[in-house]
């Protein structure tokens, strides 16, 4: 198949050579592969953005999952921000709370847009709707944010993995956080290569993260992993915008993530047999929910 880019190096080179945004390159490739018009592609992403917006709004009103394990934390954080006493900064915590809101809705079997997966669906919209308040982007730029995130996710999905069962949480929340970091940099006016640096810095710091859902539910620790994915993305974006680069090139970081995922023990890849799922409390929760302990 004829694609415009196979890896991050090609993507950045193409964007810089043609003096385009990464989001524009992604739209061009989608037009080429699908044969659809720019408007059709744009409209579909616009609908996805609407779904994300509604999920955040719903989560910020407070939801609770069927198991009762998650829900309401997004509201707690918004209340805390409102006191004016936050230490890590209002924008960062706003992103965290909106990431949490999305995943609380997901855990409650609500409607979300997978970015790149449902378990990691909070990071990209969480950061987007927080950064929005500072950068005041146009609707077009907000849609562009999703295309840039999609470009990086596309590379990871084809060269490594975005599945927790195949690569652990590093492949899900790790990829989502990297995607968000790259998009934040673009929205803030950074260069395509700075987007790649932000992605690399983020993913490097999520390498090795295992997928160990308690009772097999996409709740604990998934919701809080999305919170930290959003925080990681924002900090890495600021580092890249400050001019900091990754000593290991972005594509090699993605390669390392893939190999780590391959060598990861199956107990730590979404089977609910290891990690937090296998702690005494994790097993107790599983027993309570399903009536018998999951091994």
């Amino acid at each position, binding site marked *: 198949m004829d694609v415009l880019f196979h890896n991050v190096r090609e993507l950045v080179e193409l964007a810089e050579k043609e003096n385009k945004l990464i989001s524009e390159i992604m739209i061009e490739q989608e037009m080429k592969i699908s044969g659809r018009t720019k408007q059709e592609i744009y409209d579909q992403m616009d609908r996805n953005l609407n779904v994300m917006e509604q999920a955040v709004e719903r989560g910020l009103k407070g939801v609770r999952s069927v198991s009762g394990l998650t829900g309401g934390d997004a509201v707690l954080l918004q209340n805390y921000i409102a006191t004016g006493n936050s230490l890590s900064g209002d924008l960062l915590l706003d992103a965290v709370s909106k990431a949490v809101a999305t995943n609380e*809705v997901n855990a409650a079997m609500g409607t979300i847009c997978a970015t790149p997966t*449902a378990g990691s*669906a909070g990071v990209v919209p969480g950061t987007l709707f927080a950064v929005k308040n500072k950068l005041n982007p146009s609707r077009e730029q907000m849609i562009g944010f999703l295309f840039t995130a*999609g470009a990086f996710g596309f590379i990871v999905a084809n060269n490594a993995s975005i*599945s927790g069962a195949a690569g652990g949480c590093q492949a899900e929340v790790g990829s989502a956080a990297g995607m968000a970091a790259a998009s934040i940099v673009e929205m803030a006016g950074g260069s395509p290569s700075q987007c790649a640096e932000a992605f690399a810095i983020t993913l490097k710091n999520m390498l090795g993260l295992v997928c160990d859902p308690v009772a097999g539910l996409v709740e604990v620790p998934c919701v809080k992993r999305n919170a930290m994915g959003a925080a990681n993305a924002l900090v890495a974006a600021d580092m890249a915008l400050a001019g900091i680069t990754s000593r290991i090139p972005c594509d090699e970081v993605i390669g390392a993530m893939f190999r780590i995922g391959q060598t990861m023990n199956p107990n730590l890849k979404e089977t609910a047999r290891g990690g937090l799922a296998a702690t005494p409390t994790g097993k107790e929760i599983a027993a309570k929910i399903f009536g018998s302990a999951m091994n």
Partner: protein
Amino acid sequence: MKFTSVFDIIGPVMIGPSSSHTAGAARIGRVARDLFGRTPKWAKIHLYGSFAETYKGHGTDVAIIGGLLDFDTFDERIKTSFEHAKKIGLSFEFIAETANKEHPNTARIVLGDDTGEMSIEGISIGGGKIEVSEVNGFKLRLTGGMPALLVVHDDRAGCIANVANCLAMHNINIGHMEVSRIERGLTALMVIEVDQNIDERVIQQITLIPNITKVSKINN
């Protein structure tokens, strides 16, 4: 390349909680229903790997049944699909297998009614995207992202050319094609991925070609 569209990454819009275990599972169920051609009376669903370990927590079971009932990934009825199944008389059974498959998220669905049965094996490869790896014992690679035709036919000279000609006449472009057979000279299966959805008239025409036994389509 397994992922071809940006909407494989930013999407699908779906009912939570898991793209691979809920949305992907719903799509596997729906492809099975499409291939069977009608709503089945019964289904036996074998789950492997991570599917087998965590299917209850992820709603994999309600999602697959939802798919068998033709619900899309964002259909709110997925949550209550067991009740819908009961209402229309679809009985089902889930079997958590311990055998290892090549991919951790694999489901094998055997489904049928009074007039026939079939088996289909699907893999959820992440982000809600699926592949169909086996139909009635035929090994194949079919990505769920494009419209596809499955043609069961006698293993005779000219069958493949006749089907390709029929598609060409209707200006339908073939993107990917595979042919496999269980036994030389007996039954074979054509898997044809095309660029646009296929009209019912075209299906009818292919059915009339000599030595063609069954034609199913999957629209995506």
